[in-house]
């Protein structure tokens, strides 16, 4: 780890400018024998390791399960948050400012929102990202309402859903659309399926106004969905995608697969778990749909001296001007959470984001393979998955009991899906991030082996 300001390329530029062929030459005036060789094995530790070290030094850090052994996800993820993000996000110049109604006095907030829109737009490859929504669930619900508002005809009330939605998001969607008489058509999720099957299924829907792909879905499954989007467009529908921002670092993002509207939960980007909120609803669309997009938008402009600046824009869509004809009633946004996501992206940069995504992806694959190798355990979503996967425990095992026993051994092993559907007694949803070290995964496998070995009553 380091805090050096000059990057690799610039460093080479400096050496070249000085006519030096190596950095050693900087010290050529010092006799060789007085210079020590680098201690190759001490490159320092990461913030994550450091925090773990110091909390270990204090005998009872917080009396609870250590972070590396927490494998709960299901829509809220246990990610590393850099100290720098916490420090900057708590600056009261941001936290005690208000909605930027007087842009000249709020350029800090506005520029941050504009940069959030930029980075998030880049990540999703979407034209427009709004200045944040309550959470991923309400962002999706607004996306569906938005699609419904532009539907081609009054009889177009079918909404196709491909991929498993978080059960709580389904509930939010139902609440938000309760009077709209939308027919939600779910593609019956098999263990494996092909794009062709989805396309064929879509062809059977007559009054489609929009279709949604969920990827990663509730079980972590990820798919290519370009062809699905084509088919939805062919039927005159809008193509919606509900995704996860970190997965977009690794896989082709919604924008490059033809999505018209994209929603996502932004919590993984620098936002503390905080028992479920405040989080960050991400909502994006193609430029042509912007007049139907709810929520605030920040735009670029100039001042009376021609200097560049930022303002809230297109507010004629909003409730304080249009009242009952507004695109939504939304007023309060999650500005400070958008700031956190921006800080996170800025701190990470593309290199850091890529590393985090890789750690989540390959570690989850590693753990899934190991767990699936245990007798009687099967992977429920054996296609590609990102950061999360679902296993089915052997017959006679209750996931709820197994997690309780693993808790006693110092693991939050995952979410027993009986929480959402009492029929799903054996399913366990497991998330793996950069905080879950290889050692902690191996320890979990070992603990599972032991717990599953002892048959339960």
């Amino acid at each position, binding site marked *: 780890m380091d805090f050096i*300001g000059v990057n690799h390329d610039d460093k080479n530029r400096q050496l070249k400018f000085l006519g030096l062929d190596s950095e050693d030459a900087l010290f050529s005036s010092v006799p060789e024998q007085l210079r020590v060789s680098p201690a190759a094995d001490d490159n320092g530790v990461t913030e994550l390791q450091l925090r773990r070290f110091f909390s270990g030094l204090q005998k009872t850090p917080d009396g*609870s399960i250590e972070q590396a052994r927490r494998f*709960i996800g*299901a829509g809220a993820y246990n990610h590393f948050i850099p100290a*720098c993000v916490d*420090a*900057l996000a*708590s*600056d009261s*110049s*941001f*936290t005690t*400012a208000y909605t930027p109604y007087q842009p000249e*006095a709020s*350029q*800090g907030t506005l*520029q941050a929102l504009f940069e959030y829109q930029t980075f998030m737009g*880049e990540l999703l490859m979407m034209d427009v990202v709004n200045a944040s929504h*309550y*959470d991923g669930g*309400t962002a999706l619900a607004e996306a569906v309402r938005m699609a419904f508002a532009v539907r081609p005809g009054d009889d177009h009330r079918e909404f196709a859903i491909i991929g498993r939605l978080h059960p709580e998001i389904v509930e939010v969607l139902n*609440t938000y659309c*309760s*009077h709209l008489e939308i027919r939600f058509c779910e593609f019956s999720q098999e263990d*494996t399926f092909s794009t062709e099957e989805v396309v064929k299924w879509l062809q059977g829907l007559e009054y489609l106004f929009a279709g949604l792909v969920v990827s990663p879905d509730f079980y972590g499954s990820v798919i*290519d969905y370009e062809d699905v989007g084509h088919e939805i467009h062919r039927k005159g529908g809008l193509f919606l995608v509900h995704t996860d921002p970190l997965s977009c670092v690794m896989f082709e993002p919604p924008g490059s697969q033809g999505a018209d509207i994209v929603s996502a*939960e932004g919590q993984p980007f620098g936002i503390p778990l905080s*028992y*479920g*909120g*405040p989080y960050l609803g991400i909502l994006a669309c193609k430029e042509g749909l*912007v007049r139907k997009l709810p929520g605030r938008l920040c735009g670029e402009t100039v*001042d*009376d001296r021609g*200097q560049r600046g*930022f*303002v809230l824009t*297109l507010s004629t869509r909003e409730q304080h001007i249009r009242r009952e004809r507004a695109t*939504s*009633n*939304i*007023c*309060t946004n999650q*500005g*400070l959470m*958008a*700031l956190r996501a921006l*800080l996170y992206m800025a*701190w990470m940069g*593309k290199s850091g*984001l890529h590393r985090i995504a890789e750690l989540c992806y*390959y570690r989850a694959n*590693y753990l899934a*393979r190991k767990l699936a190798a245990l007798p009687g355990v099967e992977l429920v979503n*054996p*296609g*590609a998955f990102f950061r999360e996967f679902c296993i089915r425990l052997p017959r006679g095992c209750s996931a709820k009991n197994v997690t*309780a026993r693993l808790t006693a051994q110092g693991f*939050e092993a995952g979410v027993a899906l009986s929480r959402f559907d009492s029929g799903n007694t054996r399913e366990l949803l497991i998330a793996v991030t950069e905080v879950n070290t*290889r050692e902690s995964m191996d320890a979990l496998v070992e603990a599972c082996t032991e717990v599953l070995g002892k048959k339960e009553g």
Partner: protein
Amino acid sequence: MLSNLPELDVPRDEYTQGKGVPKKRRHLTIPDHSELEVVRHFKGLGRANFSIDDTMYPLGSCTMKYNPKISEEVAGNSVFKNTHPYSEAGEELHARIVHGLQDFLVSLTGLPGVSLTPAAGAQGELSGVLIIREYQRQRGSSRQVMLIPDSAHGTNPASVAMAGLVPKTIKTGPEGRLRLADVLEVLDESVAGIMVTNPNTLGIFEHELPAIAEAVHEIGGLVYGDGANFNAIAGIIRPGDLGVDIMHINLHKTFGTPHGGGGPGAGPLCVTRELAPFLPGPVAVSQTVSHKSTVTELGNDSNDGREGSRQSFRFVMPERSVGRVRTFYGNFGITLRAYVYILVHGLNGIRRNSIQAVLNANYLRKRLQPTLSPAFGDECMHEFVCPNPLVTQGVHTIDIAKRMLDYGIHAPTVYFPLIVKEALMIEPTESESLAQLDALGEVLEKIVKEGLENAETLKRAPHNLPLGRLDELLANKKPVYRHRLGG
């Protein structure tokens, strides 16, 4: 900051048995920076903001009161930051805190049912209108009309429309108040309910609300109280006593939670006992269990671990809930801060806040009267609205607002409520000192004088900020929503 991240410590193996792996992304153009570059950039952005911590911010209706540092300290505790919403071990602690705030809100509103899940005032409104719709539906009624005064926040009609009901506007009376007579005129069997903000957005207390509520109840309608201005009366008047059936509260306004850049907030919903089963969920409930007490009690400085019964807490969905409006348990981080705020104030402290907020507004209102004559009446609650006194000089309200920035004070809310032409809506809050109130008064007096002498000074403001007046028209005509990052 790649050097600060763990190395990949597992093989690059993909464990897929069925479908193939999706295409990997090739380009991502988010730039890499050193930590210092990130720090300087954002510290610079912070310096480009006005904030409560810098200066007075008298935005009417937005209630920019002080956000105590102790709330941030408590919320920064790692247990609160790092607990997953599905952590079994965390439910008791977190439900206890949610329940604690629910209880306080019951005391303050006189409404015994509370849900803290709505993420913002507007979401509380939506939930409330959904309850009204559902209540009417379960009574076998298909009433569609919601009455809304013309002084209401835009969220009221927008929430009604969003829930599939139909808003109908009632005109404000000549004294800036809603009149029973005007309500009776439109009250019929099509009316599902009425939405009233009290004090209203003119900062005036709606006297006739109890009578209006009675009339609405009589025809089978419900009364929705918009709690946006609850900070004027909390601890003094309980909306439930006025006949309100449902009410949301904007936690940041009344209980001083940070609301940076427009959010996050939280919009708890409070309802009568009859409507409690309809609340959006989950809500926290308590039950008594016998246990050896190890939990400290607030205000009791001993901790003797005696045997006895104690309360246990968990989350449940109300039985006939209109549903979830948000994943998990709402904005817990905001709940926590509001809870801390009420704990440190006590109910008496909340009452003292309301009194001082009203006193400050009345003081400022009277002090400014020769310069800025209020739109209505002789007194106000926590805020007051004045029409622009410089209209005849060709000076717009926005010009006055921009000029205030030059003097280092944030502008009030402008052009709202819509029923006052060229309105300035001033809310000083209880946080400001008398010296600061007088400073605001002097600035406004100076600006009005400037406007009378040389209107151009105002029309070209701001002069003293890094940027001059920004062209909002251009931003709308040729919208640019983001930078295009180089490859």
